[in-house]
């Protein structure tokens, strides 16, 4: 999905909704603020959350930031490239730098099956998000 068609939260996350599955990641602005991303603490597939619940954290060398879900629902998929361990074993293809290099593509974090389409209405459009961070769309 193109950036212009995505929706955004005030916490600098993007949401790409297709059917009832929302893919979530962090924005370019967010990754710039965080610096080099080193690790993500993630929920498990099957966990359910309300809108704006804290689902994990994103760590960089010098800081740690909460990860929220802008929409409520059930986690259905996690991006294996952002998990340092899979099934209890070290993941050789762990690439947290994807969040820095390609935040809207390879840097996607999780997919959530949304429980209420109304949650989308509180989110910002691309234009409004860019205005919020003080940049022209």
């Amino acid at each position, binding site marked *: 999905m193109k950036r212009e068609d995505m929706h955004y939260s005030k916490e600098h996350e993007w949401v790409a909704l297709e059917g009832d599955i929302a893919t979530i990641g962090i924005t370019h602005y967010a990754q710039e603020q965080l610096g080099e991303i*080193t690790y993500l*603490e993630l929920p498990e597939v099957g966990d359910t959350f309300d809108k704006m619940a804290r689902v994990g*954290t994103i760590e*960089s*060398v*010098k*800081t*740690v930031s909460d990860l929220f879900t802008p929409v409520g629902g059930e986690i259905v998929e996690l991006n294996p490239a952002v998990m340092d361990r899979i099934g209890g074993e070290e993941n050789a293809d762990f690439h947290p730098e994807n969040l820095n290099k390609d935040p809207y593509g390879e840097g996607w974090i999780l997919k959530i099956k949304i429980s209420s389409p109304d949650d989308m209405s509180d989110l910002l459009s691309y234009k409004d998000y860019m205005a919020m961070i003080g940049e022209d769309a």
Partner: protein
Amino acid sequence: MKYTPHTEADIAAMLSFLEKSSLHDLFADIPCDALCNKEMKLPPPLAEMEVRKRCEELAGKNVKYSSSFLGAGSYRHFIPSAVKTITSRSEFYTAYTPYQAEASQGTLQAIFEFQSFMCLLTGMEVANASLYDGSTAVAEAATLAMGETRRKKLIVSQSLHPEYREVLSTYLGTGERAEIVPLPHKDGTVDIESLKSLVDKTTAAVIVQNPNFFGALEPVQEIAAIAKSAGAISVLAVAEPYSLGLLKAPGKLGIDIVVGECQSFGIPRGFGGPLLGFMATQGRYMRRIPGRLCGKTVDKDGQEGFVLTLQAREQHIRRDKASSNICSNEALCALAATVHLSLIGRKGLREVAEQNIKKAHYAAEKISGIKGFSRKFKSPFFNEFVIQCPHDASRLIAELDGKGIAAGVDLGRLYPDMKDCLLVCVTEMTAREEMDRLAGALSELSAPAVV
């Protein structure tokens, strides 16, 4: 003695530069009338030789027993001179925490080596740069287990050092944080049947010590398996790490987390501190480990170097969400242990451990051969054992104290039903004559108390 360099001229020049007329002017911000210069009862300054005299006087009021059978979490082991040579290098002991890695490669590599030694001894994949001591390490492990499993029940062996259990209780025993369930011992070791009935799907951790407080060897592999079967985390506390010279590495026996005390490795008993706590875990707990971690990396030119890493877990970044609040640890003690273990090496670890167990068994046999004295427990032991005495251990200890012998620890102080029990520790430092003398003194006292 003063350590400030300021002469009158220096002070005058600096005050002039600051356009202030007196040092007190610098404190103008302070509501001084209310607060400053209250009467304080403090002694006058002393010259260095007077300081030395005063300290030597205080040190002289303490008894250094030539014959000591005290263990219980603080051990008399031989410390090679070279340990002190290294730890008294001021490049090590007056260095700061290695946050500026490029200026601290000595400290950092030493920490990396300490972490490595802990992993080699315990068979684990990750170890941190140290914790305060064995007792707080147990509390940190319990916290980790509760966070990891999201459960609250802690099954705690009653043969775990009483002070470790007290600290665990202080940290987690009040309020709703955790449910601490005591696991009784049977003949000096964990009651396995009890453990099986207590462990369930609400158990966060099973916490045992090996060798335990009584010196006895616990069935570690079995305990680990029982914990695992319920999805609980097994935590093994090691207060006497020389035992690892003979025992299999806990990490290879299915234990999830090993914590404990490394005072045995190059650190003087020092009336109980500073000590050297450690935590070593299976790889999967790496991100949850409290305390500092040193990692290997490269510099701009590709040269190998070391840095503190995974700092996002720690208090200075994560603040109220940190895995622990620990900041200062026992770094210099960890250096002492690292140097000590390097000197002792593979063979030395084994040989010292063998002397410990063999000498301890000699003493145990000799003492239990005296009329009225017997070994309280039948379980195998490393370098400590419990003797049942014909009367109160406290009386016995007092009598032998008069002969310059510290006979052991009075277990009646800690276990109300063991008033007649003495915990005796023997190490490679305990000469045969000492043990013979102890046995001799005990046999003189073996007449039972007059009713």
